[in-house]
Structures are given as C-alpha cells and as structure tokens.
C-alpha cells in the first residue's frame, strides 16, 4: 500500500489517483489505508474519509467477484430499462449495491454509460453490453456465476 501511495505523490491532486490505484489492487479501499494516505498527503484522516465517502465509485467493503452495472437513466428507461433492472434485482434477490449470497455478483446502478442509442445498457466488469433484454441479462448473470 505504501508503494502505491508513494508512486503517486508527484502528481498534482494525487488523492483520487491513489484511491483508484488502491481499489484496483485491493478491490476496495482498506481502512488501514486512510492514516497512511493522510500522512503522505499531509491532510487529516477525516478529510481522506470525506473524499472516499463522497464518491460512488469507492468502496470500503469488497464487491462480489463480478460487478454488474445496469443503467437507470432516462434514455434506457425509454426502452424498458426499469423492467430489466427490476427483473435482475428479483432474480438475484438483492437490493441495489447488494451482493449475491455466493459472493459472485454485486449489482450496481449506473446513471448512463454513453450507450443511450442502444439501451438498455449494462456493464459487466468494465465490458459494455447494449440492447440488453431479460434473456441476455439472465445469460450475463449466469456467466458471472450468480
């Protein structure tokens, strides 16, 4: 962790790059990181915590093995996004941000993936999917082991 932090200290505004790098490496922002970052950047622990909690992307508890994001924004709603999302939530038996019992899938809402001309849109571990219907979604979730 110290190495990741010090790798970024030369940057102007290093905190977000550090947090992204930590989350990429550890799958979350470990609690032990907060004092280390605060120390390295010469800011308070409260400030670091405030930043982590402000942004939707950063998580302090690890996600499931796969992260499925479903777009909830207007253009996807116009082509059935809500029904798709409801069906996925029901199928997995989770709420938004929830992880399936077997730890395979975390379901996250996302507000637009820039795929608004081919919605409903979803993203699985950074890979984009367009015109997703319930059958496709069921297949994606099954592939993810849910």
């Amino acid at each position, binding site marked *: 962790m110290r190495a990741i932090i010090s790798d970024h200290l030369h*940057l*102007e*505004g*290093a*905190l*977000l*790059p550090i*947090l*992204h790098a930590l989350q990429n490496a550890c799958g979350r922002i470990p609690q032990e990181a907060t004092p280390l970052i605060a120390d390295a*950047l010469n800011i308070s622990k409260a*400030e670091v915590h*405030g*930043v982590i909690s*402000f*942004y*939707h*992307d*950063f998580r302090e508890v690890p996600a499931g093995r796969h992260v499925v994001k479903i777009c909830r*924004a*207007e*253009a*996807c*709603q*116009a*082509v059935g996004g809500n029904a798709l999302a409801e069906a996925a939530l029901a199928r997995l038996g989770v709420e938004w941000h929830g992880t399936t019992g077997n730890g395979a899938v975390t379901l996250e809402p*996302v*507000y*637009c*993936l*820039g*795929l*608004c*001309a*081919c*919605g409903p*849109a979803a*993203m699985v571990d*950074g*890979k*984009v*999917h*367009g*015109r997703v219907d319930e059958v496709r979604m069921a297949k994606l979730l099954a592939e993810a082991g849910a």
Partner: protein
Amino acid sequence: MKIYVPMDSAAKALGADDVAAAIIAEAASRGLEIELIRNGTRGMIWLEPLVEIDRGAGRVGYGPVLPADVPALLDGTLKGLGRVEQIPFFARQTRLTFARCGVTDPLNLDDYQAHGGLAGLRRAAGLSSTEIVEEVTQSGLRGRGGAGFPTGIKWNTVRQAEADQKYIVCNADEGDSGTFADRVIMEGDPFCLIEGMAIAGLGVGATKGYIYLRSEYPDAIRVMQEAVRIARANGVLGADVLGAGRAFDMEIRVGAGAYVCGEETSLLNSLEGKRGVVRAKPPLPALQGFLGKPTVVNNVISLATVPVILEKGAQHYADFGLGRSRGTIPVQIAGNVKHGGLFETAFGMPLGELVLDIAGGTASGRPVKAVQVGGPLGAYMPLERFDTPFGYEEFDGAGGLIGHAGMVVFDDSADMLQMARFAMEFCAVESCGKCTPCRIGAVRGVETIDRIAAGDPGAIPLLTDLCETMTDGSLCALGGFTPYPVMSALTHFPEDFATAKEAAE
C-alpha cells in the same frame, strides 16, 4: 482489401469484437489477405456493428453484422447498405468536429494527418496568443458542455491573467443521460481533442492540461491514454510542441462516479483531490481555477472543435448556424428511436424534423409523447414545441435548453409523473449537499410527487412552490434546473398527474 470494424464502445456493446474476431478467423481459413482496421463509429448506432469494406472503389457498408454473417460478407453476397457516405442519415450531416470520426484509425497519427489533422495546431504555432484567441472568438463557438458561454471570451480572460502557471482542463465527465458525443470523439478521434487542448494552451499561455474523464467510460480512458502517449512520443505534446518552441503536455484523470463533478468548480475540487463540492463564483475558474491558478475549463466538444476552426478559419465555421448559435452541433439521438446515433448538423434544424424525420420516430412504432433535450436537467418537450429550431436562444424561448445536445425520445407509454419523480430522485442522489433547497428539496420533491400519485391534488401547488424554491435558492444548475424536467412534465402532461385521482373517484 481493407475492412473496417468500429472499436467504439456502442459498437462493442452490440458485438463488434466478436465480428472482428470472426472476420480474422474466416479470412485466415480462406487464405484471404485483408487489412482489418478498428475505426471509430460513423455515429449510426442502429446499424452497429457497421462493417465497411473497401475493395478499391470506396467504402461499402454492411450492418448490423452478426458473426454468422461473416462468410457471406467475405463472399460479397451479404446485402449491403451501399456507400456509407450516401446513407441518408450520414449524407444529411455537416461534419466539421466529427469529420474524421469513423473514417480514420483513431490511434494512427499518420492517418490523422492525412485527413487534415494537426493543420490547425501548425497554424496556431505560427500565430500569437492574441491571434489564436481572436480566431476562436470570431468563430462564434460557444461552450458545448451546457451553458453555451462564448469560448473565445473565456480564453481571453485566462490569456490576460498574470500567473506563473495556467491550466487547460477538459471536462469529459459527460454524465447527462442521452449524451455520448464526448465519448464517441474520444474513442474515435482522440488526437482531435489533444490538438484542441494544445491550441488552447498556446492561446492562453498554459503549459499543462488535464482531461477529467468519467470512470464509466473505460474504453475512452484506454484510447485517450494511448493517444496521449503517442502524441508525446511524436512531439505533438511536450517541451517543444511541433517544434514551435512552446511547451504543452497533459494527463488523463479518472472521475469517481459523481454526476455533480461535471459542474466545473466541483470538477476542479475533485481534480485537486477533494470532495466534489461546488464552489461559489466568483472567483471565476478563469482567474482562480485548478490549484488557484487561471484555468480554462471547456467541454470535450468545445475543445475538439477548435482544430477545424483554426484549420479552415473562423469565418468558415461561423457561416454555419442560426442567430447567435454559430457552427454545428452534434445532436445525440437516443432513447426510443428507430435511428439512434450522432447527427452533426448546423444549428437551426427544428426539433420535430430531428425526431420524426432524422430519427425516424420511435423504435416501438408507437406515437412520440415527449422528448427530453439537454440531459437530466433539461425540459420535456411536447409535440406542440416541435417547431423549435435547434439553437440556444430558440430553446430558451420555448422553455427548454439544449445543454449538451442529447435528445431522449419517449413513446406514449411513458408516464411523465414517474419521469418527474425520477428527476427529483436523481437530484437527491447526486446533490453535492451544499445547499438546502437541493439537498432536502429534492427528497421532499420525491415525497410530494408520490402524494400526487396517491391521489392528493393538493400536493400539486406544493410541488410548484418547491420547484420555485429550488430554482431561486440553488448554487448550481443541479438543484437550479431540476425543476425544468419536473415542471415541464407537469405543465405539458397534466393528465399523467391526474390519473390516480381520477381512478380513485
């Protein structure tokens, strides 16, 4: 034989990678020599994956192509779309900003230059900073991020500011639903944005740039990072830009999933490593921006339009358009439409023509009910407003806004009360928390709309009052403009706010 398969993420989302793999495998098994190019998208998303084949007599399009179509594609027996440039949706456009997008290999700098790339920066390198800024001012270019502020005037403020360091910050947060122009150009013509930022740097005397790119766009992040690396290796960026003796370099910074960070001052806080809370203005970012230094904050499309202005001259650009809206605008056609995608056109085309003619109406085949223009903070425009020409002042006059020029079409199954509720819910989720009318008001807004839905007509005046409070008492447009979608839904579609009550009676 050259074969083009887009690497744009919309094309990928519709299977382009599988199609490209199938083409490579099929060609290999036939011993057929092909050159496969992963281009950007032409913007006709309903045809993606749109494969183009150049057999020596122009580029012929096929799409949407499935992997199973590949043998017929290579046999020449697959039914095609003809010359891509002659597909009506494409032929009717005026492509200035997006002239190369979909045409070239996005990460091939030679290809970029063969299609006019770097001509603008070369010209700028021979001009004084005053002349560069004057050219942009004369073009009439206004900010494409939403507010429509004249780009040249903003640049001039930064140019005249005295400081040891100035910055160019590109706002690539593109959080609005229904918009994807920034993503398409970053994935399809990344050098164009780099060139625009370098010209801005020469124009205002800034040596360092940042692109604040949202984390929801992993493909765009990869392409932009690679393009910056290539540009630096080839002397487009660095200590001596194009050998002109002036320095400019840049970095890509990744956002962290907060819509409000698209607001320029919140973005600057985020870039500095702070919470993305909106700053009060003044001071203007142009005078005290990133790390307190004079900073140009511009949208991706504003900056990516600068190269063509310098290349062809301000007048060429200003000759397109309507009234005080000069040049072209990439309209993003989204939602329930037959022909969704990116349509770059001179300002002035009426909304109805875009929706019914260019977009071809709804994909569902049902009647159009409403169009939300300008993202989640934009108004729902009813059919009665379809004669509104696409222009900043014209939309303002019709009770709407252009914003980043996204257009989301809904058919008659849309429930406008639910859309108004969503607008409030979105504001509540994404509020930066600084002002009460936004932070608390949006939560109250959801509750009030739920009361209306439950059949309480007395809640309607409450909603109207609440919207007024939000409009008057919000520091930025998140809280200040959420009333646009809410009130336009209520005003133009009152029947959707009355159904529950009538059902109860």
